[in-house]
């Protein structure tokens, strides 16, 4: 049929074609298991913050949306275990592209992403999330801020990517827990993927060294 075959296809779709439109605000498409959404700053099981203020996330960020300043822990009331903590931690969501490179770069699993993507602002200043807003609450769950539209499940498995692939993908680590516990959850079980029979995905088994170099370059 050559050229005319195309006419038949378009005409057929008028009468028999499916309608693939999702009526978005009313009905919502299922969200992917590891969707990259709004970030959270995690804490250890004892409530200490995981962030050590190393700025690797800021260094790796291609959109330059993260601003971090570290400070020495006050000796009598430490915020994080170790020497330093994230004194200032800001993410500008007008710039963030949700690439998850900050999550990959983080040496302490401090920053991970929830599945929330339905949030908006009326002001540029409001788009900059501060440490107070990003930190998980006392149960280890993301704070449900009033201008965000959380759906059931958006705040679960916020460190799933980490627990599926770290450190990782290397066959010798298969099935071994190589991540730290989280406030509210304890030591979380491996996510789908790490022990799956499929060939191990080793794209980030040298992740930390790589990102150190990367961070230094910026």
């Amino acid at each position, binding site marked *: 049929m050559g050229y005319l075959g195309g006419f038949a296809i378009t005409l057929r779709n008028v009468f028999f*074609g499916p*309608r693939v*439109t999702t009526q978005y605000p009313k009905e919502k498409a299922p969200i992917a298991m590891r969707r990259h959404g709004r970030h959270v700053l995690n804490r250890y099981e004892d409530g200490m913050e995981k962030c050590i203020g190393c700025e690797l996330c800021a260094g790796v960020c291609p959109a330059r949306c993260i601003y971090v300043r570290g400070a020495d822990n006050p000796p009598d009331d430490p915020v994080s275990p170790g020497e330093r903590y994230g004194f200032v931690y800001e993410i500008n969501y007008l710039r963030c592209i949700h690439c998850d490179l900050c999550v990959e770069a983080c040496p302490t699993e401090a920053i991970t992403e929830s599945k929330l993507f339905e949030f908006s602002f009326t002001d540029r200043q409001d788009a900059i999330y501060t440490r107070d807003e990003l930190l998980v609450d006392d149960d280890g769950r993301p704070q449900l801020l009033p201008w965000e539209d959380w759906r059931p499940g958006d705040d679960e498995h916020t460190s799933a990517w980490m627990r599926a692939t770290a450190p990782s993908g290397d066959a010798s680590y298969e099935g071994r827990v190589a991540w730290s516990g989280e406030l509210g959850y304890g030591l979380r079980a491996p996510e789908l993927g790490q022990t799956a029979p499929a060939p191990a995905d080793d794209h980030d088994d040298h992740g930390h060294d790589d990102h150190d170099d990367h961070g230094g370059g910026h």
Partner: protein
Amino acid sequence: MGDPLLSGPLDWGIVGIVVLKVVVAFVLLLVSVLFMVYWERKFIADMQNRIGPDRAGPAGILQTLADGTKFFFKEDLHPQRADWAVFVLAPFLSFVPAFVTFAIVPIGGDFSNGNDGTISIFGRDTYLQVADPPIGVLLFLALSSIAVYGVMLAGWSSGSKYPLLGSVRASAQMVSYEAALGLSVCAVVLLSGSLSTHEIVVQQAGSVLDWNLVTTGVVPFVIFLIAGTAELNRPPFDLVEAEQELVGGFHTEYSSIRFALFFLAEFMNTVVMSAIIVTLFFGGPAGPQLFGPDIIWGFFWFVAKLFVFLCIFIWFRATLPRLRYDQLMDLGWKVLIPLALGWLLLLAAIKLGQQLDWNLGAVIVGAIAIMGAATGLLVAAVRSAKRTADDDVVVID
């Protein structure tokens, strides 16, 4: 000949009827444009497995009004380097010809049983068309040439490179396809023996077999449809405003209501071109009177045929990818124009043969032999030109 309304002495009643017809035609065209904007979006959405506009009003029927209101309230930007007078004039040059062309289209009337489409309004006999000039078809061709100026001057006066490139393409494209368009209209005029659109419709009023589509042998219709699409700058010939290459083409620098005028003109031209196709090839408002008052059926058949062609233009847009510039020119100059010219000569030979009582079979065989030879010569010329062009290409390793 001519509208019976104007044959007698002029009085205020006649003026009133003419003004009424002008207003009705104006409103009808605007309403059909409103509908076309909506229907194009809805129908192409159906072809692309989408839903299309459905927010404004039931099933999105008020979408066009919402768009229009938005355009009115947008800021009217003045490009600093634009040639202001021409810049303002261009949108009007593009949509006034569409209105004027619509004036010669018969939109209704009783053409059944040998009637000549005359109807009676307020006790006076008239045709249901704004004007029936004896040179109607020529007027259509002239006005479609003027529409080229709208696009060309818009691009030229914007003082910006993309509109300029768009308008250069537009003028080349519209000028080349106008030749094919004119030649295919010639075939209709040759058989009808009249340039008056009303007369052309009357000639086709008998049955489907009297339609010029059949009597001219389909080929002029196909050429007219293709050339008409190119003349409208609609896909697949929309490289005047090819988004991927030229931002918005000739109307890149236009905003607000001035852009809306171009938008309106584009759809208005689509409606008018469909109306012209219906008039020239499909018998216009001619059709059987089924039941009820006689006066509605002519208008009904006209709108029904018009609607089919509006859908066909949308169908083209949904199906065909845009042509490349050289393909466009090849199709226009090396296929459509020779074909239209050859077909016109064939029809002329047959008509002459009938008048002089020649053997019809011999005429057709002879004409086809000559057309075959001409096609061979044309193909040979194109090949040889292409070889020469290929030889000139310097290959750099």
